[in-house]
């Protein structure tokens, strides 16, 4: 049985203008020790899907569908039940470590709090564990650093503290929302290395939200590509990069400047991402899609399997897309 099984997850926000459907039918399964990458541009719904699973949506947001974790549905779970799981069995790393750490509390207090709540240990024992985790994420002089406040640490260091904090209770699933986006590349490399090692040592499953396909290539086994609140393509990482089957995935890969070769002209995807308050009818990508037909403007394609563990939502047959994808 998979560790996490998500079925038809929907997220809707009530706003002054209209109801905004931010996530529209996300499905995936996550096995133990597996890493899933969720890729998409701003507004694609990648963060909201994860926040919904952890009961962290803004007050005007409402989630529906099923996210089964060990026989319990995370969607619509009571706060009381969620509080037992969140930060304990399922934990999260946010993008901006400065605004997600409490500036008034020392690192020690923020970390021991988690353990006292979930593991019912003494403050002394909690501190001992906190220091050993700070050491595990390679914070130098951890015993000294633990007495400092977030503002005394550099960006990379704060992100390490966040990771250490998320791992305090040895969670089964770690949700990481753009964990390295705010960091410089050399620091990013340190953090990614750290996540790889932690996964190896603790066997944690990771759901990694990112817009950086390079990070996905290095860390993830499975990938889900989202656009306009819907899943466009879902498969294992090797397949996605070697033979992308959805026009959006193809477009994304072609728009990416490469470090390893010049590759001539970049091909941008024309147009702008959809306004989710007034989403286009049919496939959310059809207005920017080179392969779109009349059907795409009316009817949103369903996510269908085209191979084992390989799903795509597109009306156009794969072989017609592939011709263009071959020179990506």
């Amino acid at each position: 049985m998979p560790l996490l099984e998500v079925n038809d997850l929907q997220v809707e926000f009530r706003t002054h203008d209209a109801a905004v459907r931010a996530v529209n039918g996300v499905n995936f399964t996550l096995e133990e020790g597996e890493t899933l990458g969720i890729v998409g541009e701003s507004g694609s719904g990648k963060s909201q899907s994860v926040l919904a699973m952890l009961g962290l949506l803004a007050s005007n947001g409402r989630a529906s569908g099923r996210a089964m974790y060990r026989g319990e549905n995370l969607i619509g779970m009571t706060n009381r039940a969620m509080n037992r799981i969140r930060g304990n069995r399922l934990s999260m790393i946010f993008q901006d470590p400065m605004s997600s750490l409490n500036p008034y509390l020392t690192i020690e207090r923020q970390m021991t709090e988690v353990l006292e709540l979930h593991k019912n240990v003494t403050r002394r024992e909690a501190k001992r564990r906190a220091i050993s985790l700070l050491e595990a994420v390679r914070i130098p002089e951890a015993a000294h650093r633990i007495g400092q406040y977030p503002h005394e640490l550099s960006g990379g260091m704060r992100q390490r503290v966040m990771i250490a904090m998320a791992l305090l209770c040895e969670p089964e699933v770690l949700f990481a929302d753009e964990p390295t986006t705010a960091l410089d590349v050399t620091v990013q490399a340190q953090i990614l290395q750290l996540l790889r090692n932690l996964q190896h040592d603790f066997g944690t499953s990771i759901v990694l939200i990112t817009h950086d396909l390079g990070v996905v290539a290095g860390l993830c086994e499975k990938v889900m590509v989202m656009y306009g609140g819907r899943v466009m393509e879902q498969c294992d990482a090797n397949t996605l990069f070697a033979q992308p089957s959805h026009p959006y995935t193809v477009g994304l890969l072609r728009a990416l400047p490469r470090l390893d070769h010049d590759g001539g002209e970049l091909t941008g995807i024309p147009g702008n991402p959809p306004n989710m308050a007034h989403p286009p009818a049919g496939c959310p990508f059809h207005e920017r899609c080179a392969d779109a037909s009349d059907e795409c403007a009316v009817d949103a394609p369903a996510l269908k399997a085209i191979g084992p563990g390989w799903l795509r939502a597109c009306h156009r047959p794969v072989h017609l897309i592939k011709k263009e994808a071959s020179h990506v």
Partner: protein
Amino acid sequence: MSDATILSVRDMRVHFQVKPKNRLPWAARRTLKAVDGVSFDLKAGETLGVVGESGCGKSTLSRAILNLIPATSGDIVWMGARLSGASTREWHRVRGDVQMIFQDPLASLDPRMTIGQIIAEPLVEHRPGMNTREVEERVRAMMAKVGLREQMINRYPHEFSGGQCQRIGIARALIVEPKLVICDEPVSALDVSIQAQIVNLLKSLQKEMKLALIFIAHDLAVVRHISDRVMVMYLGRVMELAEKHALYDTPRHPYTRALLSAVPVPDPAVERAKTVQILSGDIPSPIDPPSGCVFHTRCPMADARCAREVPVLRALGESSSAACLYAMAPA
């Protein structure tokens, strides 16, 4: 005149006096060396990429070139004229030829001005004799060039997406037909699909208008795509300055090698096979930079000599130069 040097920067330093924390009158003043001895030349129509991590001084450098932040010392020669000690009027003239594009597309546009006003402003400032009809014509022509519909002329910045705002920023910079445009992280706030649109737009306008670009970014892949030459900065100093191909294919400086190996490549086979050279620790503070070579505290090749001697940027073969005691010229 494609080979002519239009801009020379010589030994530029930008230092800031930092107030000590306790503010006692006898406390020693400390100096933050944001840019510390940077020299380079730029030819007409050329693109120089400037890369480095946060705090390396790349943005301060770009502002010092335009005197938006005054340089502490050093020379800037623009079209043969020395600008050190130039009057406000002379700087004003230079800024008609050197324009800037900023990182945050929305924050760099005045929310109370329509985009027509925003794009026309540099023209009104730098071509005071031009009549209103011609200004309008040029604004409309420029909007078409950067891919903005003419009907948008009376709208306000908040009505546009990030990519469109960056198009407005580009139109504003190019309306006075500058010779050089300094782009400070122009695409780093944009999504990949939009980023490619903007990079392509910049490239085609550069060709059409024969612009020189100084392209500042932290994304080494974007810089590779757009630049002719690339300058790598660390803690206010130039580590390596090389032709694009030389820099990416045979990086000479250990910092450049570390930077390049840290960038994730969107190809699982490559990405999983490569050995990332992880730099230990964080970038040191520019207030008390390390002695000798500023990179020696994190450098895998450093020895005792690196802590003593400041390496100068020296030519290594025809297309590279690096500031490292142990960097080797191609065999």
